[in-house]
Structure formats: structure tokens, C-alpha cells
């Protein structure tokens, strides 16, 4: 039997392994030391006890957290800063966008900012409009910062290790509702390179590109479609910026159809960029217009039926695929 691990456990293990291997890896963020229960979700439990002053809980001061991470990185450390929720990056945007992302360029390469910003988000936790947003497109739009979003425990581990190793700032997006979802355990020490997508399921009829929690919805849709004789190829992007154009274009070149799926709202989203590039490269070879699915264009709602309907789910993805293939809906 394969060993199982939750995403939260995998993240904890990656942080532990990174800190054990490299004394310049340090951590800071709200509530993350053991005195404050090792993070509001317990992701960093045990690490402050093991690594002492290298792991620090901070005041609720996101600008100060990001500034401290940036400054320490300029002096040779590799800080992993936690911004508890992705919506809270908004109060630290100056530090992230004007400074972390730009200091390498603006200094002509004299300084650089090897930090990881861990942050969690996602609808499904009944926390409403200011605690659930996927804002990855903002950061992917900014030159100088990488954006990573794992979909399972093994990816959480392998991508986090690579993000910590990376010489550039990385925004690392964790899906809050799936922290406790078990999956195959990672292989200790095994890194997943940034910028490389994974073909999560092979198929020849169309390509679905997704990441983070939506990847699992896409896979569920693909399984349902397989019973109807439709074979979808599902690509797990893993790194949003820079994204793996080669893998996506090779797949769409083969299938001729592309559907992008993410939880973030659709307009100006990551799916729009992928659709544009695929159109530029494969215009004459497409069998159907590229389609995009995203969250509803509203704040993430509180009321359960609304929240459940906010992000695309497997049934909606399957329905979109049938429409793209001009198939009748299945009861």
C-alpha cells in the first residue's frame, strides 16, 4: 500500500527538510511558532521548537513581514514568509510588487530576493469575500516574481523545496479547503522543477489545463467523460508563472481543443493568457475555439449554495467539454 500524507503534512515536511539542510532558511509570519500553535492551520507545527530563533511569529503586520523577508534575503538568507491568507497580500503589495519582484532588475543584478511567500486561499471554507480569493493573475502579470500552485501532497512537498531553492521570489499558493486531503506521500528530497507542468491524465480528444484544487475537479470530470467515450488530456500546470508553454502547446497540438479551468474569476485570468498564447501558436490547427472556465465574477459568497456554485466543479467542466465536442448532455 502506498503511504498517504495530507497536503499540510507535506508542507510541514518540506519546510523541515529545507531548514535542516540549509541554515540560511528562516521563517516568519503570523502565528507560525509553536507558542502560537504552529500556524492557524498547524502547517508549521514543531518547526520553531526544532529550529529556535530561525522561526518567528510576527505581529499582524504584513508590510513588516514582507519587508523583513526581503531585507534578510538581500543579506544572504532564504526567508519563507507566510502571509496567512491570499487576500492579505493586498496590504503588502508595495513590498511584493514594487520591491521583491523588482530589486534584481532595478539593481542591475547586484541584489536579488530569494524569498518564498506562502499563502493560503480558496472557496469552500465559508469565510466569504475577503478570505477566499485566488489572486494569482495579479502576480503572474508582474515581471520578476514566480507563482506556484500545487494540487496535491507530493506536489506541495516537491514544489516547495524547489521554491525555497529558487534564487527569485516565489509566491506559493496553498488551497485551504484541501489541506487535509490525503494523497500519495512525496519521495523525501525529491524536488519538482519550477516551470514544468505535469500531464496528470493522457487523452486525445481535448486538453484541459488547470492547477491547484481545480485540477482535481478537472480529473474527476475527465473520469466521468471517459465513461462516455471522451478521453480528455489533463495538464496540471503546477507553476503558473512562468508557465510551461511547451507542454501545453504540444498537448493542444495533438488534441486540437483546449479548456482552461481555474477558481479565480475568468476575465483577465491565467486562462485568458494561456488561451491567447495557444491561439497565437496554434490558430490554424484548432478544431474549436479555446474555452475558459473560472469562478463567478463576484466576491466569493458566504451562503453555502452560492459558495458551492462559485468555482467550476467536475459537472460544469464535463458539461463544457461536451459542448466543445458538440455532444449531447448526459443525464
Amino acid at each position, binding site marked *: 500500500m502506498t503511504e498517504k500524507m495530507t497536503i499540510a503534512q507535506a508542507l510541514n515536511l518540506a519546510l523541515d527538510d529545507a531548514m535542516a539542510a540549509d541554515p540560511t532558511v*528562516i521563517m516568519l509570519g503570523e502565528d507560525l511558532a509553536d507558542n502560537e500553535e504552529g500556524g492557524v492551520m498547524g502547517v508549521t507545527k514543531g518547526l520553531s521548537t526544532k529550529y529556535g*530563533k*530561525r522561526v*518567528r511569529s*510576527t*505581529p499582524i*503586520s*504584513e*508590510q*513588516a513581514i*514582507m*519587508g*523583513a*523577508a*526581503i*531585507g*534578510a*534575503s*538581500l*543579506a*544572504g*538568507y532564504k*526567508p519563507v514568509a507566510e502571509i496567512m491568507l491570499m487576500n492579505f497580500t493586498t496590504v503588502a503589495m*508595495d*513590498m511584493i510588487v*514594487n*520591491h521583491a519582484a523588482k*530589486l*534584481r*532588475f*532595478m*539593481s*542591475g*543584478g*547586484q*541584489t*536579488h530576493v530569494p524569498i518564498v511567500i506562502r499563502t493560503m486561499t480558496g472557496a469552500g471554507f465559508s469565510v466569504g469575500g475577503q478570505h477566499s480569493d485566488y489572486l494569482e493573475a495579479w502576480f503572474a502579470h508582474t*515581471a*520578476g516574481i*514566480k507563482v506556484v500552485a500545487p494540487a496535491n501532497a507530493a506536489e506541495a512537498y516537491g514544489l516547495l523545496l524547489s521554491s525555497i531553492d*529558487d*534564487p*527569485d521570489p516565489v509566491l506559493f499558493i496553498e488551497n485551504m479547503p484541501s489541506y487535509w486531503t490525503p494523497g500519495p506521500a512525496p519521495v523525501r528530497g525529491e524536488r519538482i522543477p519550477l516551470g514544468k507542468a505535469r500531464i496528470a491524465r493522457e487523452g486525445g480528444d481535448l486538453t484541459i489545463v488547470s492547477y491547484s484544487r481545480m485540477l482535481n475537479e478537472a480529473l474527476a470530470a475527465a473520469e466521468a467523460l471517459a465513461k462516455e467515450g471522451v478521453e480528455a488530456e489533463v495538464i496540471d500546470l503546477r507553476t503558473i508563472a512562468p508557465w510551461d508553454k511547451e507542454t501545453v502547446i504540444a498537448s493542444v497540438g495533438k488534441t486540437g481543443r483546449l479548456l482552461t479551468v481555474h477558481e479565480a474569476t475568468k476575465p483577465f485570468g491565467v486562462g485568458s493568457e494561456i488561451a491567447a498564447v495557444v491561439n497565437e501558436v496554434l490558430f490554424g490547427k484548432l478544431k474549436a475555439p479555446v474555452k475558459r472556465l473560472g469562478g463567478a465574477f463576484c466576491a466569493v459568497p458566504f451562503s453555502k449554495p452560492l459558495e458551492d456554485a462559485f468555482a467550476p466543479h467536475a459537472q460544469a467542466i464535463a458539461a463544457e467539454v461536451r459542448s466543445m465536442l458538440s455532444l449531447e448532455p448526459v443525464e
Partner: protein
Amino acid sequence: MTNYPIPDPATLVRMYEKMELIRQNDERAHKVVMSGRIVMPYYSPRGQEVIPSAISVNLTEQDYVCTIYRGTHDMLAKGVPLKLLWAELAGRVTGTCKGKGGPMHITHPETGVMVTTGVVGSSMPIANGLAWASQLAEDGRVTIANFGDGAANIGAFHESLNLAALWKLPVIFVCQNNRYAEHTTFANSTAVERIGDRAASYAMPGITVDGNDPDAMYGAAKVAIDRARAGDGPTLIEALTYRFNGHLLGDDGHYMDKQERQQAIAADPVARLRARLISDGVLSEADAEKISADITAQLDEAIEFALQSDYPTLDELRRDVFATELA
């Protein structure tokens, strides 16, 4: 202030040399921009020469400085080489940042100038991180966070001072209160009379000092720097000064109080220190002339070097975005 250390004559001369360099550099920046030889946004630090000069004589090359768009005085006092500075102002590949940062983003880690920010208040959170690194590494360095009175009203000020005090970081917050936040007077933007008083909110020592008085400024800087180096934590220094010019070159400062401005310019701290050093017999007129002439020659050479240098090639657009060059 009675027990504060004062600079010895040799230190005062070092301070004066830096101040004269800043003064002449500013004069040249005005000329070069007005003549159209370099196009850049220029935020004059004229009038604020004493502050970084008094601080820098208490620092080593390894100590860190974070400064802001009005920061050429901080850079020059810390020792950023003139040629590299001017080449950067001119956007040339020989500049500190290969011309890619420009006047608001001068960076020169070899002399400890780690970040120059164009965003009001953003020097402080990053200074904390440099100081945190020094604390972890126990390397004995201190970090200077420069900012203006306008920045004392932005959230980053509060967040940074609180964290620095909480973690006892070896950082000195230097508020260069030049009485204007862009076009708005200090009185019209700040509820308290003394920014130094705000240190009490963060349980750290705070001092409001005449930032144009070489003795007072030296003493305040030395006490704060020694304290940080000893591991006793941060200090907030409010250095009272005056911005001789408008917000940036091209703004004549017509909204500034005429009488106040005339008084400040009449009390030019560079001229005052020069006169004092001569009257005290520390420098002769000829010594002072030689200091000025040497600086003029260095500036001639630096500006010539900058203007003769090449612009960066266009492939620089793809470099330094990430560690790996963009495709």
C-alpha cells in the same frame, strides 16, 4: 543632549568633506539637468547635508543603509563611488545598476547601500530585514533606515518600528524632517509636533535633534548606532532640517513659506561648518579651498565618465528579471 558625545576636529573635517561633496553634487545635478545633458527626476537633498554625514562617520563600509528617492546625500555620505553614481543618473551601462535603476533606485552593496526606494515609507520594512539578518548572523552590523517626515504618516512606519522594537533589531530609524511632504507642510500633515515623540509608542528611545547642527546630529547618531551595535535595539531619530528646494527639480517651491526658506538658506549648514572650521583654526582658507577644488575635479571626471559611457544594450530588457535570462 548634554552628555552626548561630540565629534573631534578630524571627524568634523570628514563630515565637512562629505557635506561639501553633497552640496557641489547637488549644484552639478541642477546644472546638468537644466542644460539637458541628462534627463532624470531629481529630488534635491540640499539643506540636509549634515544628517548622513554625521551618521556615516559612525558607520563602517559593511553597515547597511536604506534610503529613498531624495537620497543622493545618503549615498554620497556612505561612499557610493561618484563615477558609478553619475553613470547611473545618466542611465549608462557603467552605472551602479547598469542604468536600469536610475536616480530613485541606486543600489551599491559594496558600500552598504542596499535599497533606494521611490515609494514613501518603504525603506523601513526592508531595513528591518537587513537588521534581522545581522542579528541572526551576529555580524555586528547596523542598518540605517532613512525616510522623510511624510513617511512617518504611512502605515509601514508603524509596522516597522513596532517589529524592530519587539525583536530588538540593530536598526536606526532616521526621519529627516525637512518640513515638507511633497507640497504639504509638516503642520498640515502631522498631528504631533515631534515625530521623535512617537518612539514612546514603540517602547524605543526617540530623540528630536537639530539635524543641521553637526555636534548634535553626530551625538544622536553615535549614541543610537552604538546602542544598536551593542544589541540593545533600535532608536528613532527625528533630525530637523529644511528642504532648500521644491519637491523635485522643476518645482520652484512657490508654496513654501518665503521667510522661513530664506532663513534656512541663509543658515546653510555647509557654509556654517566651513566657517566654523576656519575660525576654530582646524582648516585654513586654503585647506577649505583645496577640499572644494578636489571635489570639483572629481565631479568633472565623474560627469565626463558618465556622459562618455554607453547606454545599456537592449538585451538588458531580458536580463535581471529573473536569475535566468528571459527567452
